[in-house]
């Protein structure tokens, strides 16, 4: 399983557009894909018309109890873990972990998915927090969309 994070600290550069299309293309090519919407805005979830189930929240995610909340999209082989409004404080919740494990939290949560999916694609919020560190640690590859403007390049 490969984990791809689509990340930029700058908003509006096309992270979600990249994520949803990358995920769709991979599934269309026959790969089993899980798109994780890590941004509390839930844009990727909106694109795929998926709402989280009522009982889903940040705690269930961090306790590793999120598998039953993954939902299939309209497209075969493509599933999505929807965002939840409680994700806005994910970085604070992760910060409560012991220092040496803080950056490994997300990676540990994704390990059990290895037999189920060929790709996990993470749509990331535009910030620089311990969540971002987790995402980059968990990812095998980080895709950074860049709009060719000065400030976008600065964000790199």
């Amino acid at each position, binding site marked *: 399983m490969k984990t791809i994070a689509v990340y930029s600290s700058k908003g509006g550069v096309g992270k979600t557009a990249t994520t949803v299309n990358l995920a769709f293309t991979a599934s269309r090519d026959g790969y089993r894909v899980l798109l994780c919407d890590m941004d509390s805005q839930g844009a990727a979830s909106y694109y795929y018309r998926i709402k989280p189930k009522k009982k889903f929240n940040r705690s269930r995610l961090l306790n590793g109890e999120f598998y039953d909340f993954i939902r*299939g999209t309209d497209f075969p082989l493509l599933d999505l873990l929807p965002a939840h409004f409680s994700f806005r404080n994910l970085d604070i919740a992760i910060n409560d972990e012991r220092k040496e494990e803080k950056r490994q939290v997300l990676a540990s949560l994704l390990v059990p998915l290895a037999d189920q999916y060929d790709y996990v694609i993470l749509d990331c919020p535009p910030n620089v927090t311990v969540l971002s560190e987790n995402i980059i640690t968990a990812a095998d590859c980080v895709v950074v969309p860049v709009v060719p403007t000065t400030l976008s390049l600065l964000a790199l």
Partner: protein
Amino acid sequence: MSKSMRITGLEMKQLRKSMFSFPHGDGFESLLRRLSKKFIIEDCSHEVTQRVYYDTFDWRLHRANQVFSSSGGALHLEQFNGQGLAVAAGRRRSKFFWWDIEEGELVERLKENIEMRALCPIIELSTEATQFRIMNKDRKTVARLAVRNDRLGEQTSELPELIIVHEIRGYEREFDGIVEQCLKRRCSEVKNKSLFDRLLSNSDLTPRDYGAKFRVDLDQDISIGGAVSRLCLRLVEDMQKNHAGVIADIDSEFLHDFRIAVRRTRSLLSLLKKILPEAQCRYFQEEFRWLGTVTGPLRDIDVYLLEKDKYLNMLPAELEDGMSSFFEQLEVRRNGELRELQSHLGSERFGKLITDWKGFLTDPDSEIFKGSRAQKCRDYVDQMIVKRFKSFIRDGDRISDASADEELHKLRIKGKKFRYLLEFFKSFYDEKQMSSFLKFMKKLQDNLGDFNDLSVQQTMLGAELGGLKAKNLQTIRFAAALGGLIAVLSDRHRAVRNEFESTYADFTGPEIKKLLRVMVNGSL
């Protein structure tokens, strides 16, 4: 967040699929009307596809719970439940061998099951399928529904319409609701049955009706005549089942199985010749000997051709070319032998043999049911088993390192007859005990069989070598290859001979004698 974060082993639920058989009528329309009150329904594709399913004559893929089919320029290997195993490019053909398909995972999976057998069409299917998306008010797909209308081969009538409901992960309630609506209509749920099983049960095929190990269940009280009749009728049935495949030359195993049935028949006639009516026994022994003889040459060539890669791999690369022309000549010879055999198996003599034989086995007034053949078979067989085992041991004990190869060949023939005797009448005895005994016997038989095969191969290749005249470089290369091969086979021949002593000792130990004694009620 909890400090002791739990990462449980992933237990993601399998997505469900339910199938319902709708009789033709408006059952499905009524279902759609009901569902459209809660969902938005959109048909997203409609297609008509042709698919051909294949298996070997002895149902090897069915026995492995696999399905092979050709559709739309692709070859598919799947499990019974529809889960795909491998795909390869390939168009529909009248038959496939694994070596006809491009290399890849499909071939690797296929060849271990089918080996040298041909995959032939068993079902031709025409399917009209419509896919529907079942969506919620956000136009998010919450379930998928497929409607299939299948038609088999040339049949004009269709199978009952099949509705398949597919669950989408995370939308369990919606799936349950649709299934509930299906159950309320005039339909039956198709449970525990793969789509392929459904096609088979609507066809005139009987899966696995051929290919199981030879076994005829005989009553403990059956007479000798009754037992011979049942056993030989089963064997002639095997011959007839394989006859068409031999004539059409579908694959090498039709002839192999045909010859096994002939060999078993001859063996039974030989084992019981003292008690069978003399004149008829002599006549049928002669005719089946003829049948064994005329089927031999083609089988011998097939054995070499099947081993071609093995032989080529035994030789260094520089000698392989020389050997390849040998196999090309064999192919030419094979065509001639095949025509000869087709003529024999289509002859009056063959037809008369089968008719006379079946008449002898089934006519109530036949000599086979009279006189001493009316006695209880079990008692007679018990004595035969003891006698033949003792005779086998007597001959085997005489063999030493100094014994000629011919002695081992004779022992092999004796052992084969003994094994056939046990296999014919194994239903008289405890299954586990018999199975255990035959397992021990097989090891020894394999050793003797390998020894014989290596002897025959060396003799045949030696004869080829002896018949060569050094005309040109190609002949010299061929001679070198033959010489190389004979040397390798000779080494193996010696090694197998050296293994005989320990293998024989395993078979003739006290454990085996005790087992046999228990099996035949202490007569040993």
